[in-house]
């Protein structure tokens, strides 16, 4: 995946940190103090869809090839800049009974982006 830099307009990962203090959640979330949510943005031209290293899987690549053939002649195609790798967020928090809960929430942090 590519991280967004300067004036890049291609599909990339934009870093975005959610500070729990800033959203007023620091009283019930014990750890961490925030998390790198990140998001995907940028263009996905047709020729990028399904490229090795950018597609999520071999099946995605095949699917995109079929889709690209079907969409040939149209300007935009159907490819979107989406997360291809995510990782869980470990959270330690108080529930409404003041119990302490520790859990890993899956798919919370965007690690890499690619064209679908």
């Amino acid at each position, binding site marked *: 995946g590519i991280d967004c830099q300067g004036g890049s*307009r291609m*599909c990339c990962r934009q870093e*975005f940190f*959610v500070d729990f203090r*800033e*959203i007023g*959640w620091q*009283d*019930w979330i*014990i750890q961490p103090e925030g*998390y790198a*949510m990140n*998001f*995907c*943005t*940028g*263009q*996905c031209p047709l020729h990028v869809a399904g490229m090795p290293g950018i597609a999520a899987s071999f099946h995605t690549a095949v699917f995109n090839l079929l889709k690209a053939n079907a969409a040939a002649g149209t300007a*935009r195609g159907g490819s*979107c*800049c989406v997360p291809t790798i995510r990782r869980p967020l470990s*959270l*330690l*928090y*108080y*529930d*409404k*009974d*003041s*119990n*302490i*809960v*520790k*859990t*890993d*929430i*899956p798919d*919370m942090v965007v690690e890499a982006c690619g064209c679908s």
Partner: protein
Amino acid sequence: TLRADSQCPACGGPTLDLESQRELLHDFAKRSILDKLHLRQRPTLGRPVSRSALRTALQRLRELSQEALLEDDIGQEYEIISFAETGLSNINQIRLDFHFPDRNSGGMEIQQASLMLFMQLPPNSTCTVNVKVLMLRPHDTNLTLIAQHLLEVDASGWHQIFLGPEAQAACSQGHLTLQLVPEGQRAHRSDILGGTSHRPFVVARVRVGGKHRVRRR
């Protein structure tokens, strides 16, 4: 607020200004966390826990998680620490109440529950504590004994008792009641309910979707 002069490069729609985008992302982050924790709104804290109790419990939890076995095919797992509230007690017995969120509707399954108990004993002495698991059955006003465990204590410190399926079922229903009956001359109420940093607690391991998941071969 939409910016008229630009378009979202990915979807072709109009984009938001930076401040609105920031608010949108914060709202998305909040909603995402609450949804994945199966919460409708952020918890409002009613009974604050002392920092010393929190620190001690977390130290114990870290030790427990290092002992835990790794499993394949796991869903989202939770570890919950529930601190005891002392109920009707006297010199011969101590009643501990634990409250858990009722998550039956969310398909959550208590996989393991253990009581952590700190006991202070004089040197070279031993003590046995009978831990009774009590439950309020439907259409009954009295607590019923559903299981009991014996804990042999030969030194001061934290002690762990794995509670059986009966106690796990009680946790799943939202409320667990334990009665501690020290046996022998040495045990006193103050031996078990020491200071605030030694408050008894239950550690429960919970898995989401245990009842409704289907395994495909």
